[in-house]
């Protein structure tokens, strides 16, 4: 059985010698929704453009459905791309835009027109079929771009920050539509974004990239709760990072010597060596804030480990969410978020508190 898309040791070096993408390995199953996530300049768009055939690759292989397509020009690849600015043809009507990709294919006119009407109908843009794209709203343009790309029935749909130009509310609703559409059609989507909320909400798996390299490939929940690298821990969600040195590693659990004494976390598939510099990443949601006078036995009984001392630096409330920034020494303050109703008595600023979490919520991040 072959996969829909395979990238094997793919690398890209620009003419001036700067590497854009380094040793990119990824295997995508049919019907998967993959997101490339990372800060701007991390190589995610370049990778997408290499799959589309707009950029050449310097090394490695790209396979679609088992066939190497390294040297195939863009128009011969079974991919279609959605652009951030939609890239609609301004001199054609909506219907002509959608029909354009079919015009060059040798299919009978009635069949072609039926396909166009079907996709217009599916995306709910039949009534604007004769309009020019210029005066239409961002959401409508987005649907036209989708219809235009999907009507040629690509194996893989590539989306380059497709929601970037939409306002927040519209983004949410199009985001949902996109997910439903992808489920219904069963087409493989590769989606580039710098917004983690989009990646976390939409994709089956997220490829986090930084400086041209893959940092981690994981399902959203796992990525959120189990970062593998320092970059991911800092980039995704809000993790408290406690630096230290590995002192013991056995049975998937790891013990770190930190400024707060010995703390335990999950190695989660990683195999650190004793003595390695590492950090424990604790998602902000997993951290509880306790009064300073809480007895140690209670804490150990509840959380399976000790708590660390912190000082409340600031408290802010956004709607029903309370955010506390707590200083834990030299490191950046830990941000803790919880529902307004979680703690009856609120904590005062500058108050000394304890921070505790279940020991398996902490993940080892090797430096």
């Amino acid at each position, binding site marked *: 059985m072959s996969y829909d898309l395979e990238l094997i040791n793919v690398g890209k070096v620009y003419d001036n010698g700067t590497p854009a993408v380094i040793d990119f390995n990824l295997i995508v199953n049919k019907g998967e929704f993959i997101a490339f996530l990372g800060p701007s300049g991390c190589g995610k768009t370049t990778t997408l453009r290499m799959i589309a055939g707009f950029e050449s690759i310097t090394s490695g292989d790209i396979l679609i459905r088992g066939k190497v397509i390294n040297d195939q020009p863009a128009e011969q690849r079974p991919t279609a791309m959605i652009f951030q600015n939609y890239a609609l043809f301004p001199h054609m009507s909506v219907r002509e835009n959608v029909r354009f990709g079919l015009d060059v294919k040798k299919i009978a006119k009635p069949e072609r027109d039926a396909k166009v009407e079907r996709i217009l109908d599916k995306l709910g843009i039949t009534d604007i079929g004769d309009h020019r794209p210029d005066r239409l709203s961002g959401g409508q343009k987005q649907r036209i771009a989708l219809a235009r*790309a999907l009507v040629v029935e690509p194996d893989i749909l590539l989306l380059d920050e497709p929601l970037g130009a939409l306002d927040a509310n519209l983004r949410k609703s199009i985001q949902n539509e996109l997910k439903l559409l992808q489920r219904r059609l069963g087409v493989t989507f590769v989606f580039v974004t710098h917004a983690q909320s989009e990646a976390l909400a939409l994709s089956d798996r997220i490829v986090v990239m930084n400086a041209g390299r893959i940092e981690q490939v994981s399902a959203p929940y796992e990525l959120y709760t189990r970062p593998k690298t320092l970059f991911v821990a800092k980039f995704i969600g809000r993790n408290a990072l406690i630096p230290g040195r590995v002192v013991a590693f056995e049975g998937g659990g790891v013990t770190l010597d930190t400024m707060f004494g010995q703390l335990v976390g999950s190695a989660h598939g990683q195999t650190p060596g004793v003595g390695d510099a590492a950090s424990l990443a604790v998602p902000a949601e997993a951290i509880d804030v306790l009064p300073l006078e809480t007895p140690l036995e209670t804490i150990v009984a509840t959380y399976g480990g000790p708590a660390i001392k912190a000082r409340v630096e600031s408290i802010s409330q956004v709607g029903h969410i309370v955010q506390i920034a707590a200083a834990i020494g030299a490191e950046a303050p830990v941000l803790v978020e919880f529902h307004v109703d979680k703690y009856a008595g609120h904590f005062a600023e500058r108050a000394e508190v304890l921070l505790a979490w279940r020991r398996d919520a902490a993940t080892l991040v090797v430096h």
Partner: protein
Amino acid sequence: MESRLLKPILAVYVGLFLLFLYGPFIVLGILSFQQGPEGGPQFPIQEWSVFWYKHILGLAPPSRVSPLPIGISLTRSLTLAGMTMVTSTVLGVMAAQAFRRNFKGKSAAFYLIVLGMIVPGVLVGLGSALVATTTGLERHWYSTAFATHVVYTLPFAFLVMLAIFNRFDASVEEAAWSLGVPPATTFRKVTFPLIFPGVLSAMLFAFTLSYDEFSRTLFSSGREQTLPLAIYSTFAVEIHPNVFAFGVLTTLFSFALLTVYAILMTLSVRRAKRVAIQEAV
């Protein structure tokens, strides 16, 4: 405060600019209505008449002033300008398209093309005449002169198209390719309609520059004269107001050309605006 002073200064500046731009033409226009055939090319106007216009069109009674040899040379100049326009625009678009990518020797090629509008025209004309003589090539307006005209106007068409492509959003082309449309079809159906305003400008440049080209043509066109040469050779003997009348007619022709250009431009700029709106959203 500043703008109170600035505005009148700018107004005077614009006034002077217009005066220098159109002053000669207005004088020329007035003198073209001089009485004929005795009236000379100077003030005062002895009597208003359209004699010289009739003279140009061959409707005036025969007189000591020989008719302007414009008929055949006008046809020549228009044909040459048309040929030059088409060739330079096609080459200019193609060259600018090539310059969208990086290739070895790109900047050398750029200066080589642009050199055509920088080198002194007399030298180019003389040079091409020498080359033609040495190689035994006959000089004609449609061969040697045509070549010098293309070399001269190509850089203008090229630079116009370079500027157009500079602002062109290439993602529409990529979108077409990714839909399975081959590059040639993409250029014809997507790129060309969108760069058409620029192509029009390049055509206008090439046409007008070739139409009144003098120095290069002087040496390279052989015996058959183009319009600017024909007019100049009548100056060499004696100037009559018929040249002015002809100047007025040519200018009116140029305005007609500009009007056509403006109409075509408005139509395609409307489209270009739509692109801009689409990009801005």
